[in-house]
């Protein structure tokens, strides 16, 4: 009893930890419930089509806004626009109307973000909408229904069709936007672009249509096939695939190897630079460091992934040669983890165990069957049995019985004998009306003779 009271401070500590634990588990519960509710909300919203189009439109706008700094060709602020694949892809995946909405909304938002004027260039928004809608409509003319469902074209045909439709869509969309401005600007409509685009056809072609088309075509030709491929892979990806070691390690390696040099370069570039030599040294250092990191990452990742595979391969080789130990097979079977390499090892281990066990059983039986019979011992045993004084009695009786049974009797005699005795045999409740044809042949056939 005393010891029990002594332990009260411990009890106190215990109760504190209990409170902490309860609080922690409550927090976990609340967070998990909240995140689950958010997930459910997102899923419900995603099921609403307009929400999807808005999301894609925002994506298009953000992408255009982020990439607006690139100014390689001298087009007004929107030079490289990788974002144009978004409306085209949405159109191809969900139909012309969705493509139009995303293109139109995206350009509207982009104009708002860049020029702070969403409606000033509404004809370009319409043109972008057409760029999203026309490829989808064209594709459906070619018999290609919404892209992510059942597909008629496969392999290179698929990408060729996407290219063709996308390019034609860009052509139509940009042509619309560039040339509609001519009559509109002539009729005193006030566009921002009326200042840069004079009202003649030739100038509109050279200064509005062609630069816009060039920019979009570039993105379409390069990005559309890549994005289509990526989308397809993503649509085929299931939750279980994320267990994959290959996926995880490759992702890790690529992300790490890609972010490091970019990060380093960014640091160097942002820092005020003094001399050209210093820049060159820093760039060289970045290059070397990046290569080093890439090599190390590749090595580490590859080894992590291939080591379990090599283990299985070695085990398979050992098994082929009949050298795989039972303990090794057990180790393989109990490999921890649920990635594909771990699973391969587990499955292989289980298989090896079964095969080894069966093989051992087989070998024991074969060995048993190979043992020669000891002829002396055999004769001894036989003689011992025959030496039994009762054997003679048995043999005499056996000979008598055999003779009695083998004696062939005329049918009539046999029948008579049966007739008198059969009843006694059947009295113990046997089934008398045997329907057996074979057994009854003698009785039925011989009755007239008798």
């Amino acid at each position: 009893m005393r010891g029990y009271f002594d332990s009260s401070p411990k009890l106190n500590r215990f109760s504190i930890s209990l409170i902490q634990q309860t609080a922690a588990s409550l927090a976990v519960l609340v967070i998990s419930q909240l995140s689950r509710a958010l997930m459910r909300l997102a899923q419900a919203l995603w099921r609403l089509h307009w929400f999807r189009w808005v999301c894609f439109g925002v994506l298009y706008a953000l992408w255009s806004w982020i990439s607006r700094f690139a100014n390689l060709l001298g087009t007004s602020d929107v030079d490289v626009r990788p974002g144009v694949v978004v409306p085209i892809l949405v159109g191809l995946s969900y139909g012309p109307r969705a493509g139009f909405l995303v293109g139109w909304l995206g350009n509207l938002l982009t104009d708002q973000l860049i020029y702070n004027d969403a409606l000033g260039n509404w004809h370009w928004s319409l043109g972008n909408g057409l760029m999203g809608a026309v490829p989808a409509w064209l594709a459906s003319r070619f018999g290609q229904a919404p892209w992510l469902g059942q597909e008629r074209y496969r392999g290179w045909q698929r990408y060729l069709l996407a290219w063709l439709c996308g390019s034609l869509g860009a052509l139509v969309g940009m042509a619309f936007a560039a040339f509609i401005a001519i009559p509109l600007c002539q009729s005193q409509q006030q566009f921002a672009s009326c200042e840069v685009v004079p009202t003649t056809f030739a100038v509109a072609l050279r200064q509005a249509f062609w630069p816009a088309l060039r920019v979009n075509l570039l993105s379409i030709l390069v990005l559309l096939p890549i994005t289509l491929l990526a989308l397809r892979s993503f649509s085929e990806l299931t939750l279980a695939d994320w267990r994959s070691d290959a996926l995880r390690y490759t992702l890790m390696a690529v992300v790490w190897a890609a972010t490091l040099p970019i990060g380093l370069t960014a640091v160097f570039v942002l820092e005020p630079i003094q001399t050209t030599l210093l820049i060159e040294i820093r760039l060289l250092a970045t290059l070397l460091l990046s290569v080093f990191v890439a090599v190390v990452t590749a090595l580490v990742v590859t080894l992590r992934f291939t080591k379990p595979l090599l283990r299985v391969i070695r085990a398979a080789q050992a098994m082929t040669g009949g050298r795989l130990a039972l303990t090794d097979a057990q180790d393989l079977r109990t490999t921890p983890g649920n990635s594909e390499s771990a699973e391969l090892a587990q499955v292989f281990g289980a298989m090896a165990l079964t095969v080894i066990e069966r093989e051992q059983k087989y070998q024991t039986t074969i060995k048993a069957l190979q043992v020669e019979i000891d002829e002396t011992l055999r004769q001894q045993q036989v003689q011992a049995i025959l030496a039994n004084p009762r054997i003679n009695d048995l043999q005499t009786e056996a000979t008598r019985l055999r003779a009695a049974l083998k004696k062939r009797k005329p049918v009539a005699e046999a029948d008579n004998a049966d007739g008198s005795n059969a009843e006694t045999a059947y009295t113990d409740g046997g089934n008398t009306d045997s329907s057996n044809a074979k057994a009854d042949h003698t009785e039925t056939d011989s009755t007239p003779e008798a």
Partner: protein
Amino acid sequence: MTNSTLNTEPTSKIISVHSFRGGTGKSNVSLNLAALLVARGYRVGVVDSDIPSPGAHVLLGFLPDQLPYTLSQFLLGKCQIEQIFYDATRRAVFGEQQTNPGQLWFCPASPREADIVEVVRGGYTVNRFSEVFEYMAKQLRCQYIIIDTHPGVAEESVFALMVSDVALITLRPDQQDLFGTAVAISLAEQFNVQQTWLVVNNASERLAEQEIRFRVQQRLARQVAAVLYFDADLHAWGSEGLFSLRYPDHDWTLRLEQLAERLIQLPEL
């Protein structure tokens, strides 16, 4: 069949089923074989002469209470011979499927402890066994008499071997059984048994049939009549009734059927 062949009564064939050790499936082979013969329209008698450890009645679903008179009592002279045969035809055909069955006469050994002790202690004369076989052949007119013997070389087993036309020796493919089978073959030769058939029972699935046949033949200089593969199904079925009725298309059943066919094809001895 013409009248001329009917001039003589068909004689009974006595088939004794032996094994060196227990548990090789003697009772299973005996009764399933009997059932397959009954299904082909023959009159078959089965004698459970394994007096010290009877088991055949279980396969036919007989409860001890249903067997008031048995071979054991007859050997002790406690009952009449006609009391110890039980018509088990209905137990050996599957439901109503069998339209034209033969007949199965079953002569059990007593499952009661007291009877077993009494017979084993008291002994009996061989002539009593003789009477049983003769009665089955002549009065019950069994075309096949199958004797399920006690494992090893007990007196009744030796007698069964002496009187049999076909000695079926069941064995498992292992060393001990091979030697015991070798001794049994020598004895069968000594007693002029016409046919000695080896039935390898409970062969492991992994062992190829050719391999088993070759090895056994090499050691015993005898053809193997059948290789019956031991199977999880059979194991699970245990001794609950006749396996061949429950699984007529199972490999084990089909192989036993071939054996039955071979018995039927056997010329008059």
